[in-house]
């Protein structure tokens, strides 16, 4: 394996043949990884969960954990050998020569300490600045990362800041000593799209100013925005490396190609994302649809409305008697056999709208109808007989399964309407459960397992099978793929697409990811602060967004 070498410039970081493992006899989770990062350059380590990308990043800082071991031919930071550092020497390197930015600043900044103190810590540890000088430098740093009102922010703790501001504070603490190398481990995961874009700009600024940036990410689209070069990790090995453009446009390895193919952003409705039959382990084998791009779906939205939401408003009562409008007179129509995408940032009211559509909460005003009949508000007693028509798939499917039940028990219960053991309604249930498993591409071997012991993709398939069991017309999918790796996400999206075609289902598809929504939906509704700010056919939204918020979302949405 040749090193992922930079062209020309002296590398700030040079890693040669790094192998990392855990436990005395444990197998290596990172094997023979080599790469370099030069000043003013950004190298992205890309891979799915379990590929060893975070372990690699932490090993460079000597922080892979107490039970880890590592071997390398070289780990050099500005030509200094890091392999034989004493603990004391390590401490002088960390923070001063290398800065680390972790995912989820809420947990990565001490929730009990003001962020100003956290940032000043790096200065306290490595400089002899007086407290006043430190405070001045902290203000300066906060301003440089674009933190509004830094005087106020230094006294706040991470829990009191929004996700974006928190991440800025974390970056400020990592760049406090202007380290030559910045390691960013999933720095934008879990952030809203618009916030993510600003954080990526900030990283790009660091790069411009001459810092070497090692970016760790699972998200190719994010990587393409800032990285100069990409190294693709799979099962602890770098399988492909090269300039970002080349790797993304012209991948050499089949795995890279599959990874890129799985990204839904910018892919027309109906086009397959996952590779069919055989090549993708765990992929559903019975699908016979062509892998070739299918032009925008022939199904013209029919006139029949499956689900109609009319002027609904939901107020949440705060602890001090104040009220907040979670959903503000929103109206959407879901036409039979089509997908309506609902996109918005966190806190925009998407999930509340989903719960309204599922009849889990009652609206304060307005109404929801299913197939023209009253649905919400309606007494649960009257809604229950028609509940079979509306199914749901959730983001956290594990939590949606009773932890005591096996897959078989879950599906049997769903297929028989909750009939008790031995009741006549249970006859033929076994066949129906097999049929459901088949339709979501799961082997019968998962039946005795509990969802806890299944992979994320398998769980989501079980969740879809459960939702299909009562033969619904409508599925409400609330962020159904947000917690999944991109290749698994592709499989689940393809599955949903195929099921819609086969059963004529109508989807209300909710996601924070415009790319996913645009790939799945015939029509898109954009939600912001409880309101539907824009609703139109997908093509129209993408080509000619009307509302400023939609435009901002489109601009910020990373694409390959």
């Amino acid at each position, binding site marked *: 394996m040749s090193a992922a070498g930079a062209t020309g410039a002296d590398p700030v970081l040079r890693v040669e043949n790094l192998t990392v493992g855990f436990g005395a006899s444990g197998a290596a989770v990172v094997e023979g990884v080599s790469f370099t990062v030069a000043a003013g350059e950004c190298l992205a380590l890309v891979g799915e969960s379990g590929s060893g990308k975070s372990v690699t990043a932490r090993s460079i800082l000597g*922080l892979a954990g107490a039970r880890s071991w590592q071997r390398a031919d070289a780990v050099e930071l500005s030509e200094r050998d890091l392999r034989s550092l004493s603990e004391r020497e390590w401490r002088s390197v960390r923070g001063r020569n290398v800065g680390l930015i972790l995912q989820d600043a809420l947990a990565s900044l001490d929730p009990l*300490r003001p962020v100003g103190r956290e940032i000043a810590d790096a200065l306290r540890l*490595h400089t002899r600045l007086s407290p006043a000088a430190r405070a001045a430098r902290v203000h300066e740093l906060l301003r440089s990362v674009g933190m509004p009102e830094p005087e106020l922010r230094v006294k706040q703790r991470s829990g009191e800041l929004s996700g974006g501001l928190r991440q800025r504070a974390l970056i400020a603490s990592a760049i406090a000593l202007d380290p030559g190398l910045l390691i960013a481990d999933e720095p934008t995961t879990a952030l809203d799209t618009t916030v993510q874009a600003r954080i990526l700009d900030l990283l790009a600024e660091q790069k411009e100013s001459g810092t070497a940036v090692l970016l760790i990410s699972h998200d190719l689209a994010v990587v393409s925005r800032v990285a100069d070069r990409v190294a693709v990790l799979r099962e602890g090995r770098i399988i492909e490396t090269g300039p970002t453009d080349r790797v993304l446009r012209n991948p050499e390895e089949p795995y890279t190609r599959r990874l890129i193919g799985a990204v839904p952003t910018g892919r027309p409705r109906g086009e397959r994302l996952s590779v069919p039959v055989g090549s993708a382990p765990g992929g559903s084998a019975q699908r016979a649809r062509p892998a070739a791009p299918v032009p925008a779906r022939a199904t013209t939205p029919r006139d029949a409305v499956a689900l109609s939401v009319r002027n609904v408003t939901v107020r949440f009562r705060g602890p001090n008697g104040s009220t907040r409008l979670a959903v503000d007179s929103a109206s959407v129509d879901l036409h039979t056999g089509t997908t309506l995408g609902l996109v918005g940032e966190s806190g925009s009211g998407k999930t509340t709208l989903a719960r309204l559509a599922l009849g889990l909460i009652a609206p304060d005003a307005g109404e929801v109808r299913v197939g023209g009949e009253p649905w919400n508000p309606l007494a649960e007693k009257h809604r229950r007989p028609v509940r079979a028509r509306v199914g749901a798939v959730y983001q956290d499917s594990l939590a949606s399964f009773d932890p005591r039940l096996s897959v078989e028990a879950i599906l049997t219960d769903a297929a028989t309407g909750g009939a008790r053991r031995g009741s006549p309604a249970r006859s033929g249930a076994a066949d129906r459960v097999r049929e459901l498993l088949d339709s979501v591409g799961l082997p019968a071997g998962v039946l005795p397992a509990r969802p806890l012991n299944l992979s994320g993709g398998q769980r989501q398939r079980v969740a879809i099978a459960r939702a299909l069991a009562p033969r619904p017309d409508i599925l409400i999918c609330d962020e159904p793929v947000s917690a999944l790796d991109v290749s698994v996400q592709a499989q689940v999206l393809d599955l949903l697409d195929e099921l819609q075609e086969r059963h004529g289902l109508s989807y209300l598809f909710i996601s924070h990811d415009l790319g996913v929504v645009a790939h799945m939906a015939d029509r898109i509704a954009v939600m912001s602060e409880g309101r539907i700010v824009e609703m139109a056919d997908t093509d129209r939204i993408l080509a000619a967004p009307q509302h400023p918020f939609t435009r901002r979302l489109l601009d910020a949405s990373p694409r390959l």
Partner: protein
Amino acid sequence: MTTDRAPVGVPFRFARWLLVRSAGALFVLWAVATLTFFAIRLIPGDPAEAILGGPGSQASDEALAAVRAEYGLDQPLAVQYLAALGRLATGDLGTSYSLRTSVSTLLAEQLPGTMLLAALSLSVAWMLALALATWSTRGGRVPAAVGAGLEVVAAALPHFWIAIVLILVFSTGLGWFPPISTAGPAGLVLPVVTLALPLAGFLGSIMRESLLDALEAPFALSARARGESELGVRLVHALRHAALPAIGLSGWAFGFLISGAVVVETIFARPGLGRTLLTAVTARDIPLVIGVVLVVAAAYIVLTVLTDAASRLADPRLRAA
């Protein structure tokens, strides 16, 4: 939820929380007083007889009537209840049946000794727990296993048994400390250790678990990546996280210490609230029992409000909840 808003009104929100919380505490105090008042009516037999030395004393009818009049026992229950509440509000806890003195005065005499004992024991327990938690989380299997083992055993030790063993070893055997707790500091050592050991077991477990959580938290990784030493990670970050839940348990710890004080003060023949309670229970001296119960309940309630307030001030996450 998180907001971008400036923390305007945080002091105001805290003041309102404290007000609501104090009102709740007052309600609980009133309910405790009412409950005790009516619960003692469940006692079979005549309270007047109890005052005159129990059913065996064969007091004359005139004497009984005189006592009833003196204690207001001939009044309707509602009148007695209101009168009792009124006296309570002025701090009058009645007269002890067995000692014939004012309960308030008695308690005022006994309270400081027990509070000293409890405060010292709590401090020692905290120090022991902190030491054990920091030592057992330094890494390695042996310290972790020893730490966990010591905590479980310590938490399961009954006070009376520790007291017996301590007396056997340090009084009867080595003669270092007196078996009877006198006023001097030497007499305090054994009772304090007796009370502190089981409490340290509980607190140590809680602290060790929270310490381990904190040491593995992403913010600890961030701190290490900033160049913080292991000691620094502990002092600056982790110990705070370990101490918070233990502080939150102060109300519980107080109850645990008072229960222990009943045993410890009895064994070491040390005057105090606990021993007074036991004597009163044995003699069925109702006003004295109620007096102790109310004082302990009031102290517990005040302590709970204070620790809740302290936790909220220290941990912004609680304020959001």
